[in-house]
């Protein structure tokens, strides 16, 4: 990784504390660096600054200079430079630091300004809080406790606006709660490039609206719910399901594509209620696709695989099968770009012990130039880095993809990459196929081909392959285990276990380790700590790494050995394909 150039630093003084911050930082962010909270509504670090809520008002001053000599004037009483304080409060969001800037965030002027803004925001706000879904996450509620006056002087009629408008398939709007901060409008225009939201009418009667006849239906619509500071925009799905303060948060990764958007899993007592984005300025900023938020629903699906036979009995059956097909090439291992790095590493060990060929199933769809990339496997790069595969899996179907548009609903995904395996089965060479969670039928094998081999299947859900398999190991979903993926930028990213797996399902690593041990008659580690000792010893790109060292925002690893490979991805939010790459979707 190339270190970013050192930004120009500017020294500022916030509530009496000096701090050096990069040029171009605004006062809200500068204050954050010294743990000073500047309350705000309309400001969002990833959207343009409009300065409309006026909640972030601060007091500001600059050192006085002698007009003749330009030398700073020293206050004779304190011996410190004299500060010329501006008599009116200024907005922190729209004020960038400059050398010597002094800021007060707790002065009577600031306190008074905040109280005023809070009162104004509340006078026309409905008394919905006890039944509002935003409770617990409402910036208005939080800040009225922190910065408000705590009593009402408003005896007039409140404005009446539309309630419970369905803005699109996933987002519900309550206009009376809207504080007109325009975050959702700016997001739709600037990030999702789906300019359908706007204000109609004027003044206090301004009302957020989706253009009549259109819908807020793009694949990023739920981000507006995340950034709405109040309960005006809510998730139709999550509405009223659970009070957020009961929920536990676990860091995870969106497995939809090789972008690897960082996420948070919200769960309680083993049940997941929602997925939200987790800020990573190098990957997904503060956003994630709507489609990725649905993925947890599969965890509870009725077709989840669970074992009725004891794990060791299943391993013994597999060992038997392996023994009967010990000649080189009789067994094929179908690895997965959905497996974690650790699982791929063990898959490679297993294949080596079985003298098996290895292949990966490819999944390619249309990218949206934002957070959906063309490669719909989260971890093909991991398979390359661990050496599970040495070249990219073939794309399933060679019809050219049309140019993608941002935020567009994804086109169907083409799955494939098993043509060599199919040929080997037809030639009668392969007798056993070990599939790591991949539905071989969906990946292009025929039912007849499957019938000609014995299948060992590790997976979470029932499908044609599990139905045809001789031995089935029920395993865990990404929400039920720990591990890492390598995303399209060659960024190693961690995900963590949010909920326990179902009874009768086993962590993939344990199954893989037991199978490898059975095949090689040598013990194999299955815990992440021991595995990473092996991984860093054997995998050059991970030489200096251990699992514990991977930061929550990920770790870029050396990609040069793979630079010439024709990856399928086009440009996404924080990714540009290398020149050599064949970008199918752009």
């Amino acid at each position, binding site marked *: 990784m190339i270190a970013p150039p050192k930004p120009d630093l500017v020294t500022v003084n916030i509530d009496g504390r000096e701090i050096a911050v990069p040029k171009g930082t605004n006062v809200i962010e500068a204050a954050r660096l010294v743990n000073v909270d500047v309350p705000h509504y309309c400001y969002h670090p990833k959207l343009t600054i409009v300065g409309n809520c006026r909640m972030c008002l601060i007091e500001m001053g600059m050192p006085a200079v002698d007009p003749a000599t330009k030398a700073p004037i020293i206050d004779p009483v304190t011996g410190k430079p004299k500060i010329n304080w501006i008599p*009116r409060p200024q907005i922190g969001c729209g004020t960038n630091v400059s050398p010597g800037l002094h800021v007060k965030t707790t002065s009577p002027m600031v306190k008074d300004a905040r109280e005023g803004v809070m009162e104004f925001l509340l006078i026309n706000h409905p008394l919905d809080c006890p039944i509002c879904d935003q409770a617990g996450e409402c910036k208005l509620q939080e800040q009225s406790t922190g910065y408000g006056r705590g009593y009402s002087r*408003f005896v*007039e009629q409140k404005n009446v606006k539309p309630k419970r408008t369905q803005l699109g398939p996933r987002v519900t709007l309550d206009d009376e709660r809207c504080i007109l901060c325009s975050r959702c409008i700016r997001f739709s225009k600037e990030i999702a490039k789906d300019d359908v939201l706007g204000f109609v009418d004027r003044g206090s009667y*301004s009302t957020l609206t989706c253009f009549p006849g259109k819908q807020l239906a793009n694949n990023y619509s739920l981000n507006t719910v995340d950034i709405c500071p109040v309960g005006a925009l809510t998730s139709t799905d999550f509405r009223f399901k659970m009070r957020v303060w009961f929920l536990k948060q676990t860091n995870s990764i969106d497995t939809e594509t090789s972008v690897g958007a960082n996420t948070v899993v919200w769960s309680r007592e083993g049940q997941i209620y929602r997925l939200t984005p987790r800020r990573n300025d190098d990957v997904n900023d503060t956003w994630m696709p709507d489609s990725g938020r649905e993925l947890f629903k599969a965890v509870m699906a009725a077709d989840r695989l669970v074992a009725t036979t004891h794990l060791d009995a299943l391993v013994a059956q597999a060992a038997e099968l392996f023994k009967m097909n010990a000649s080189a090439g009789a067994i094929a291992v179908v690895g997965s770009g959905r497996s974690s790095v650790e699982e791929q590493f063990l898959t490679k060990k297993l294949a080596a012990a079985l003298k098996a060929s290895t292949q990966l199933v490819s999944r390619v769809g249309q990218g949206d130039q934002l957070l959906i990339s063309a490669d719909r496997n989260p971890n093909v790069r991991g398979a390359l880095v661990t050496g599970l595969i040495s070249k990219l899996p073939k794309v399933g179907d060679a019809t050219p993809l049309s140019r993608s548009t941002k935020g567009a609903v994804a086109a169907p995904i083409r799955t494939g990459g098993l043509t060599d395996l199919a040929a080997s089965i037809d030639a009668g060479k392969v007798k056993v196929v070990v599939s790591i969670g991949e539905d071989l039928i969906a990946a292009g094998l025929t039912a007849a081909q499957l019938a000609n081999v014995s299948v060992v299947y590790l997976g979470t859900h029932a499908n044609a392959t599990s139905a045809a398999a001789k031995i089935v190991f029920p395993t865990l979903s990404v929400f039920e285990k720990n591990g890492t993926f390598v995303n399209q930028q060659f960024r190693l990213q961690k995900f963590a276990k949010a909920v326990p797996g179902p009874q009768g399902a086993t962590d993939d690593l344990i199954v893989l380790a037991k199978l490898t041990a059975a095949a090689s008659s040598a013990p194999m580690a299955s815990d992440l700590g021991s595995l990473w000792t092996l991984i860093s010893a054997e995998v050059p790109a991970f030489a200096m790494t251990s699992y514990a060292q991977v930061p929550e925002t990920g770790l870029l690893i050396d990609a040069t050995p793979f630079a010439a490979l024709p990856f399928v991805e086009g440009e996404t939010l924080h990714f540009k394909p290398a020149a050599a790459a064949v970008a199918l979707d752009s």
Partner: protein
Amino acid sequence: MAAPAQRRIIFQHIDEPGYSNDLACYVRNGGYEVLKKSVTRPPAELIDEVKKSGLRGRGGAGFPCGVKWGLVDRKSGKPIYLIVNADESEPGTFKDRYIMHQDPHQLIEGTMISCFANNVKQAYIYIRGEMPHGARILERAIAEARAAGFVGKNICGTTYSCDIFVHRGAGAYICGEETGLIESLEGKRANPRIKPPYFPAVLGLYQCPTIVNNVETLCHVKYIVEHGGDAFTKVGTPNNTGTRIFCVSGHVQRPGYYEFEAGKITMGQLLYEVCGGPLPGRTFKAVIPGGSSAKILRFGERFKGKRKVGAEMVDYDWGVEDVPMDFDSLGMIGTMGGSGGVIVMDDTVNMVEALANINAFYSHESCGQCTPCREGSLWMKKITTRMVHGQARNEDAALLKSVADQIPGRTICAFGEACSWPTQSFIAKFGDEFKQYPETKKAAKPVGAHELV
């Protein structure tokens, strides 16, 4: 002391019998001669004349025009735009209307001189939507001027080219605020922009350097370039140079527009002598001196302090009648000259009702972007309307003041001041009337009083 005579510079031909708004008439009266001469002079020299003149903007803020031109970013490589602010929407103001309807070529000549001085290639006249005839008259006048080589390509035979287009507003007061105007001209809601970073002189129309000047201001530029900046400083008083057009409305015998040298006439002279005093049987009660957002003055109150006269500081002790009508004197007594709109109220007016009328205006016109103005202006309106039409409470005066105090200085644009100053000043000057209103309401209205809200 007798009022001075009017000094009609800008309004020289307004209401002049036989004077028409076509090019021929304008040229007959010496029109476009100043432009012809200007385009042979170095532009910097013209800017210098304006700087020397001390001309202050006539749109409301009174900002020195030469200083404004000096702030324009001329190094950006981007085109420079000039916008004529012809939105004339501050209640009580009605001067630009007459220039545009009766003497449009004066504005066009002033605009073209200003464009040449500032190397502007495209100018727009943003005229309020409720002046459809004005827009047509301007369009026709521009077409005439274009045909005669005063606008458009190769002005007066030089290599300098600059066009003017008329752009109509559609009934929103906030389009008078210069950055709201720019947004509106860009085809958007007229939401004023945050400054920094969007100072028109640097990031104005289409993010290019932009000059926004009032109609009357640009007419003064023509006069200044014709007679020289120094000559202009001889008109009016120091720091308040040139003439001012006063638009007097409300309860006087002769409402209308009057042009005087700035600072040479007092409020009393203007209202009693020029405008004929109060209506029969009435007395003056209050006056708003610079458009409805200016702070109100109460007849009978006194203003004391020290002021600069020449090099000396002298004491002053003024009643409302004694105040010279210029930016600085009006500023000194806590109000402003603003746009020159003088609204007079006599003893039939109840101040609660007058404020309710004003508050209805501002709450209707707030763009709604920023919280204090959006919510505060409507809250104040709701309170004053309730006082008049519903229940009035003793504590409403204090509440109104406190709401108004939470607005100015905290908003994106100066509308925050515009909408709160009336309430602040009405309560400060007529607080007793607000407190008594629950009783006043029950009594009969004075004869001749009109419904105000």
